[in-house]
């Protein structure tokens, strides 16, 4: 019970985001330009894009999980700075020595989608690590709730037959799905 109360926000988040994703709720993306300014720092030719992106994010005080595209032949590097509430797209032009920061406007289905998909231990940042650990906690909790629920049901003799009917029906439908579709 206490575990369920603690993890209630995650479970509500996963339930709502699953509904949004199952119904392919549209995710309109509109960006607001936060900054568009000169960027005087230079990079040695052949600098790996991730190193360039790391330096740019540090200079902009935007360090955190990111992916990077480019540089394109005309010198544009695009950094996608992940963010649960406000992801940012940062464009650096080596030719013009400028950097522009565009922030995605907060919108419900996009937020739910990002929340549902955020996982894994690939990023070296504390918040990402905390999220991955919380995802593992939800995994353990779901299996624990299932098994402890089975045990509590078995302890209530009055519910055994109806419970067995529900469990057998659910298991039968699930197995039929797995084997046939």
């Amino acid at each position, binding site marked *: 019970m206490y575990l369920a109360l603690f993890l209630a926000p995650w479970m509500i988040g996963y339930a709502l985001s699953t509904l949004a994703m*199952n119904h392919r709720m549209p995710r309109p993306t509109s960006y607001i330009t936060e900054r568009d300014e000169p960027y005087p720092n230079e990079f040695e030719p052949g600098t790996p894009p991730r190193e360039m992106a790391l330096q740019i994010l540090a200079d902009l005080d935007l360090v955190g999980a990111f992916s990077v595209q480019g540089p394109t032949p005309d010198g544009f590097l695009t950094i996608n700075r992940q963010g649960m509430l406000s992801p940012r797209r940062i464009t650096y032009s080596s030719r013009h020595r400028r950097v522009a920061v565009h922030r995605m406007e907060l919108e419900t289905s996009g937020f739910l989608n990002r929340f549902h998909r955020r996982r894994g231990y690939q990023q070296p940042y504390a918040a990402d690590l905390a999220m991955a650990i919380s995802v593992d906690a939800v995994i353990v909790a779901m299996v624990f709730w299932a098994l402890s629920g089975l045990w509590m049901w078995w302890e209530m003799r009055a519910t055994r037959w109806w419970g067995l009917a529900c469990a057998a029906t*659910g298991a039968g439908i699930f197995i039929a799905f797995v084997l046939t579709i």
Partner: protein
Amino acid sequence: MTFAHVVRRAHLYAGLFLLPWVIMFGVSTIPINHQSPEPADWVRLGEHTFEAPVPESSENLRPLGRQMMDAAGVQGGYWIYRVNPRQVQVGHPDFLTPVRLNYFLEERRLIVERRPFSLRPFLSGMHTRGGYDMGGFWDSVWAVFVDIVSVGLILWIASGVYMWWGIPSTRRWGWMALGAGMICFATIIATL
């Protein structure tokens, strides 16, 4: 029969009915949260000469997907996306052994492949399958169950909170658990 009795029984029987889905969504999150660097192996089933016009907009790709499915002799639901300007991919989800079709426009080739059963992609495939736009009847029925599980999760939380409130001796620790969870959740969301 009191309201509290109905809530307890609904909590229990819904949980027993949806138990396989709850375990599946929990266990199948493991390969997603702990990703393997090794890609899944696909076995080539065949190759066909194929040519069809490809619409510019990715929103109009589904008729092309149907043509690719028919050319490969595959029945059922499918998803489709344009990998790059020279390649379109169709996937026919099957929990145990899914099929994928790759159409290489310039070479006018359609390659049909099947993924042999493998535990990790089997689990993650169950986790990610959903949506009413696949075109297959049973795909839509599966999507209905995904919705039912989602609504079930919300109802279990609501009925769980109701049942917790009915046990006054657990309120203090319950408030602490609920509050701590909300603070941790809000902190992670705000800093990610």
